[in-house]
């Protein structure tokens, strides 16, 4: 059962703004929207659709298609509603005879340069140009060339006299996932802007000018594949026609339904609409209301969905007596009873603790909760573990020790309010591409970046992005570098004393400050060890401490080290020192390996912790769950994954229930 309202999929035309409320009148309807909102969006909020082609609510207004023109009382002409911000008391008319005539005139021009093959077009029924032609009531295209000759156009390979049409360009099928058909392009620039504004790759541009303007990937002679394009799909999603179209849609046809799901590839956890034609998945489209991705995607989630229909995918329950036997398809009843009987018989033969469970960070909270409960309430032991404990237990421990709870402190939306970012031991453009796009957008808007990584990752310098400081430390020296940053902040008096007094333990801080101020932690003293230029390090520390909202993002380059927990605590200390905890735009953020690491930990899948990180040894803790579940809970922590494997080798661990995880 869905206990929430599914938000609208409707495109509101221009991005939402934050600001003081402004009330205006559109077609006699009073509308109140935040200051800075476009008239186009204000109308959409009031349920008044204004025709548009170049506008989209994930892109800044551009004003090129001229379909969204309106009349505003007291203003000359017919301004485009997408580029006109609302003002108090403004009176707008969206459907006057004059604007209707302009829209029809513009649409007539569009269609005069468009192949009229709608019935066989891959975008048939899913084409904004088609929709808008209907919306403006276009009935006739009166343009023709003199003496019945062919008009100048982009869609016919040959002119009426049989010569090659210089305006026609062949289809670019070089990208494996989508094709670009210039003949169907209406030059709305949405793809170019999506590549710039949403993805931040800058692979696309418009080549030529006037009627010759065409979308172009890369430089002269490049096709899509040869360009900087990373196949994130933002351009394809942005295209209102079939100019940029998924090859799957061309081959299979348009979808007839969609299922909202979560991408399982990386730790970002993007929401997708899995668009289906019958039972066939035809396209994965990033879900615009996904909280992690806000309608953006990377190549993996967008196009690498071959797993959905892969021949190796197991679709029916199977059992086998022994490993040398072939798998045998069985009914669900048989499979469940086989598993239950065998697990119970293992316990009868080898003891209560001879079996266990492993769950995964790719599972939902509900799934993970139930699996650990299976171990604790049914198997009667605490042999439950998860991959999350392996990859990010330093996060769990470090943040638990410092903040009292082992969770990252920000959601991905928070990056939009960040002023200075430290990235440590992570390579977001490769590892967490959708988050990287969101981060890059913020950096292009002026936020500063400090990269702490031995590698010269893309974020250090890429189009329109440059790190203010890159501290290329020697591997294994995270603690020294993080401590040196803190040393500079404390010794130069850059910490946020009010925050520390109000939100931390001042006496503890004095102790810490004395420790960290010791000259052995200085950038100069540790440079020999870390290889980091002390001047750069000091500048980076000052920048982070003095630039407004500061956020730290870190990855496995921090946690998968022997001193991982200590580094995490150092990072948490940096955030607390500078008052960067507890509001949007600031915080400490582990970039996880899978999309529900947090939930897997929260749900109690560790052998020593019940849901909510409550330690198994506490009798009062166990009592709560014993009452809820109506069973006795074992007081001893269970086996971790390596212990299970060791015990299996020793012959004491005999059965494993494994969910969503490939421990091999």
């Amino acid at each position: 059962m869905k206990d929430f309202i599914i938000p609208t999929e409707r495109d509101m035309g221009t991005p939402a703004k934050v600001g003081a409320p402004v009330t205006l009148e559109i077609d006699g309807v009073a509308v109140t929207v935040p200051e800075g909102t476009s008239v186009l969006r204000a109308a959409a909020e009031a349920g008044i659709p204004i025709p548009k082609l170049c506008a989209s609510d994930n892109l800044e207004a551009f004003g090129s298609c001229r379909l969204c023109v309106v009349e505003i009382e007291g203003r000359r002409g017919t301004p485009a509603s997408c580029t006109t911000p609302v003002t108090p008391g403004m009176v707008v008319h969206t459907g006057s005879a004059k604007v209707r005539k302009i829209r029809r005139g513009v649409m007539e021009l569009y269609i005069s340069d468009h192949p009229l093959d709608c019935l066989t077009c891959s975008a048939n029924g899913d084409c904004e140009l088609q929709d808008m032609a209907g919306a403006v009531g276009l009935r006739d295209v009166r343009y023709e060339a003199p003496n019945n000759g062919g008009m100048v156009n982009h869609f016919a390979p040959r002119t009426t006299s049989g010569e090659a049409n210089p305006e026609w360009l062949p289809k670019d099928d070089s990208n494996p996932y989508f094709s670009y058909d210039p003949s169907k392009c209406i030059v709305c620039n949405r793809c170019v802007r999506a590549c710039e504004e949403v993805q931040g790759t800058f692979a696309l541009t418009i080549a030529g000018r006037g009627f010759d303007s065409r979308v172009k990937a890369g430089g002269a002679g490049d096709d899509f594949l040869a360009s900087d394009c990373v196949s994130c799909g933002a351009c394809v999603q942005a295209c209102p026609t079939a100019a940029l179209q998924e090859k799957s849609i061309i081959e299979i046809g348009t979808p007839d339904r969609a299922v909202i799901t979560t991408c399982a590839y990386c730790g970002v956890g993007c929401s997708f609409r899995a668009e289906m034609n019958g039972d066939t998945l035809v396209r994965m489209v990033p879900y615009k209301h996904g909280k992690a991705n806000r309608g953006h995607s990377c190549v993996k989630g967008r196009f690498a969905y071959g797993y959905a229909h892969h021949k190796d995918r197991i679709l029916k329950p199977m059992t086998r007596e022994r490993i040398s036997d072939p798998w045998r398809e069985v009914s669900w009843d048989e499979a469940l009873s086989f598993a239950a009987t065998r697990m119970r018989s293992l316990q009868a033969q080898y003891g209560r603790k001879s079996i266990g469970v492993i769950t995964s960070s790719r599972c939902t909270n509900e799934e993970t909760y139930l699996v650990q409960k299976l171990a604790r309430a049914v198997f009667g032991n605490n042999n439950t573990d998860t991959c999350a404990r392996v990859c990010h237990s330093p996060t769990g421990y470090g943040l638990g020790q410092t903040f009292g709870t082992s969770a990252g402190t920000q959601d991905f939306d928070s990056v939009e309010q960040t002023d200075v970012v430290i990235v440590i031991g992570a390579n977001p453009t490769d590892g967490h591409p959708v988050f990287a796009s969101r981060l890059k957008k913020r950096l292009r808007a002026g936020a500063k970046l400090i990269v702490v990584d031995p590698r010269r990752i893309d974020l250090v310098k890429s189009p329109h992005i440059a790190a203010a400081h890159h501290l290329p430390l020697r591997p294994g020296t995270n603690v020294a570098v993080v401590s040196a940053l803190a040393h500079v902040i404390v010794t130069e008096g850059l910490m946020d004393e009010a925050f520390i007094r109000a939100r931390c333990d001042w006496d503890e801080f004095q102790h810490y400050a004395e420790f960290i101020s010791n000259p052995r932690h200085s950038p100069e003293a540790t440079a020999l060890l870390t290889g980091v230029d002390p001047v750069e390090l000091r500048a980076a520390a000052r920048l982070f401490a003095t630039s407004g909202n500061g956020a730290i993002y870190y990855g496995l380059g921090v946690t998968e080290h022997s001193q991982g927990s200590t580094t995490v605590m150092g990072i948490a200390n940096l955030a607390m020192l500078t008052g960067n905890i507890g509001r949007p735009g600031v915080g400490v953020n582990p970039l996880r390996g899978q999309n529900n690491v947090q939930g897997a930990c929260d749900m109690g899948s560790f052998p020593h912790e019940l849901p909510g990180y409550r330690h198994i040894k506490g009798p009062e803790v166990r009592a709560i769950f014993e009452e809820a579940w109506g069973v006795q809970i074992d007081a001893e922590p269970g086996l971790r994954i390596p212990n299970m494997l060791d015990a299996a080798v020793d012959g004491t661990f005999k059965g494993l229930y494994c969910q969503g995880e490939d421990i091999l």
Partner: protein
Amino acid sequence: MKIYIPMDSAAKALGVEEVATAIRTAAPEAEIIRTGTRGMIWLEPLVEVEIDGERHGYGPATVGDVAGILDGSSVKALGPVADLDWMRRQTRLTFARVGVIDPLSLADYEAHGGLAGLRRALGMDGAGIVAEVTRSGLRGRGGAGFPTGIKWKTVQEAQAPQKYIVCNADEGDSGTFADRMIMEGDPFTLIEGMAIAGLGVGATRGYVYLRSEYPDAIAVMRRAVEIARGAGVLGADVLGSGRAFDMEIRVGAGAYVCGEETSLLNSLEGKRGVVRAKPPLPALEGFLGRPTVVNNVISLATVPVIFEKGAAYYADFGLGRSRGTVTLQIAGNVARGGLFETAFGITLGEVVNDLGGGTLTGRPVKAVQVGGPLGAYIPVGNFDAALGYEELDAKGGLLGHAGLVVFDDGADMLGMARFAMEFCAVESCGKCTPCRIGAVRGVETIDRIAAGDGAAIPLLTDLCETMKDGSLCALGGLTPLPVMSALTHFPDDFATRREAAE
């Protein structure tokens, strides 16, 4: 012996360099001063010899005339230049020094009133400077006629860590040359105007976006900026005031649309020269997203004289809401073409028939296109139109940059309408649909009319309406003006083809 010889591009095109060389050879002892042009192009090359402190003109001079010019016997003698009818009838405020001084002599510039305006402005605060410009009634001379003072006030009141002055010197309109003439003939006045603008609005950096087709103007402006910087007119300490303003010359890449202020800013930033939607206004988010004054050369070059003589003095000239002087550029099929600066209010007929002397071919005048390739064709019947922004607008015209191109009765107005559409198709930036596709369809539709398809005329009218009301900038929005004025005033030129075909 003092001899003044222009080095303006128009004079060069008419052979002044050969004449100058001949004079140097024949009179090696003479002091030769190179100047801008007096603006009487039909007299170029116009050589001036100083006799008893008065400059006597000889032109149009050829190499064969040199001996006569030097001994005073030349039949090309025009008498004192200042006494020529063309010169006497002008009110030269903006162009006061052009053709008079050595463009690259700062001393000459100062001796003729230069820097007086800047010195006066340095005694005023930003708001005072802006108020002075507002009081002068100066309006944008690039074409739009927007009140300069209001634009400056917007920039002055904007809060930003950096503001800019950008001079639009992308003078691409056919039949216009005032910007070029003043940059070649009196560059310091533009520099001074930009410095005053910078002081007024709080901008410390300026750029002149100068079209690549003007190599001489580029060279003169660059040298003038170096000289001004060397003399402390530009730099961190403008004339010892402790206030900073510096500027540089940037060269365009040949796109007409980059004369549109937002495309110009994109081009100046190193981006494709495509039009930006407004708002945001460049005055608030202009060059590099900062508050920016974008003014035409003539607007900025007029600022020094306003400060030198006072806003009231300047505002005293003119007609209605068009205050001060207009720098008319008379071109096309005209007997006497050139630059004529006068108070707003002169009629079109006086300019074309009296000053211009009618057509060069001697045939009757058919129409004048006022305001560049996007301006209306005005028939002789409307020659009583006074040249002022509102006055010309009332006659369906557009003053624009005040370029006038004269046509005789041989002009084919359907062909001129087609040219307007073709020009738009070639120069369109391609961003908005009405301009990008509409201009191409316009050429085709006019070709249909030319081929006798009278049914295409209502379609052309509809297309013009779509382009006028729907385009993003003035290129697509004003192309219908020449087309529709040609169609409205000269319907026979559109009908004869049809009849001929029938």
